């Protein structure tokens, strides 16, 4: 690891100031991706700004929405009685990210800021139409994800909260890579009174995406069979040593059906 200056600001204003003052400064959330990246010398920040003292580790229900502080670890979301009751699909998703040790440290804000194309949280945030609150503004999920490892965030912008609307039904089905536990394909389905939203992670060349054909079919009939015969464009799929593009395109349909079945 290259050396860097470590800063642990006690409030959001100081954290933003430190990030804004130096283009080479980087924010550290749980560090479950960032620290391995630093160890491999894939990144050389001048200053690492630890966000753990900003008081952003909380979960609350407010105005019919579930609000999760950006520094809330996956394990906390998975074990939270509020989340289990209001949005059980999110608790289930959080409880299957990485492994137990990763879930104690990895955070929702870190996952969203990184926007790994195989991360689980982006699928939930996009399918649920959540809003991402930062120190300066509120960003709709549909505007937030802008391709692999790319988001609407500015370099000196910090995610503070994620606001989840509560669906009638929702579920997440993940086909995990057996070694890394990352999603080779993960499908989150959410049924609202206004219609169904479906988001897919792990599969697309541009990271998480919505599946319009699935959404249209499921909005008419929220059953696994409603997806029969609907295909996913192969040329938009990822291909790597773990699975070819046609394989992933097929898996998208299989996992979407499983998610619908699980949502009930």
């Amino acid at each position, binding site marked *: 690891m290259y050396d860097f200056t*470590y800063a642990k600001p006690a409030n959001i204003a100081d954290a933003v100031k430190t990030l804004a003052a130096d283009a080479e400064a980087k924010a550290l959330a749980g560090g479950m991706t960032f*620290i391995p990246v*630093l160890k491999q010398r894939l990144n050389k920040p001048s200053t690492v700004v*630890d966000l753990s003292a900003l008081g952003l580790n909380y979960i609350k229900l407010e105005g019919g929405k579930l609000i999760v502080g950006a520094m809330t670890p996956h394990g906390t979301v998975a074990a939270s009685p509020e989340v289990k009751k209001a949005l059980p699909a999110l608790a289930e998703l959080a409880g299957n990210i990485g*492994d*137990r*040790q990763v879930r*104690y440290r990895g955070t929702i804000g870190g996952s969203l800021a990184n926007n790994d194309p195989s991360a689980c949280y982006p699928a939930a945030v996009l399918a649920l139409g959540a809003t991402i609150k930062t120190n300066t503004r509120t960003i709709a999920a549909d505007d937030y994800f802008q391709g692999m490892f790319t988001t609407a965030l500015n370099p000196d912008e910090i995610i503070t909260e994620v606001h989840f609307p509560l669906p009638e039904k929702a579920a997440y089905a993940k086909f995990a890579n057996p070694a890394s536990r990352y999603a080779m394909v993960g499908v989150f389905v959410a049924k609202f009174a206004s219609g169904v939203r479906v988001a897919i992670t792990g599969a697309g060349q541009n990271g998480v995406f919505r599946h319009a054909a699935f959404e249209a079919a499921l909005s008419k009939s929220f059953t696994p069979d409603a997806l029969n015969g609907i295909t996913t464009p192969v040329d938009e799929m990822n291909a790597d040593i773990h699975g070819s593009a046609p394989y992933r395109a097929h898996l998208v349909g299989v996992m979407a059906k499983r998610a619908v079945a699980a949502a009930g």
Partner: protein
Amino acid sequence: MAQISLTVNGKTVSADVESRTLLVEMLRDKLHLTGTHVGCDTSQCGACVVQVNGMSVKACTMLAVQAEGAKVLTIEGLVNEDGSLHPMQEMFREHHALQCGYCTPGMVMSAIDLVNSHPEGLTEEQIRHGLEGNLCRCTGYHNIVKAIAAAWPIMHNKVPMAAE
């Protein structure tokens, strides 16, 4: 260099570390607590698991400076004052849950956290899921799972540890 203070195995310690020093490097190289192993160095194998404020974490994926003020427990901190083993260590011995022993410190630290986190009981499936972050290349896991299942009732005071 920054000086950090923390509690390791019940004792207050301080160490001079660089910002980039990993927790596992501080434990092994500065404090000479070499029971915590480095296996993969890529956050996957779990040989370096220690407890930080009661939670099992991979010490190769945490900066030492992040542990400022924390309570850290390593495998060396488990043995009782009279030299007797922690029930989890005892059950690992009893059930032959190790062969080469390299993964064992991390396995034991993860297992203790897993048992502590499930006072209501622990199924075999939960134990296997709970060990996802720890790799063992010798035992095939069966005896590790047995050892953890056997340690649960002892750690939750349902049965006493059998006399040797």
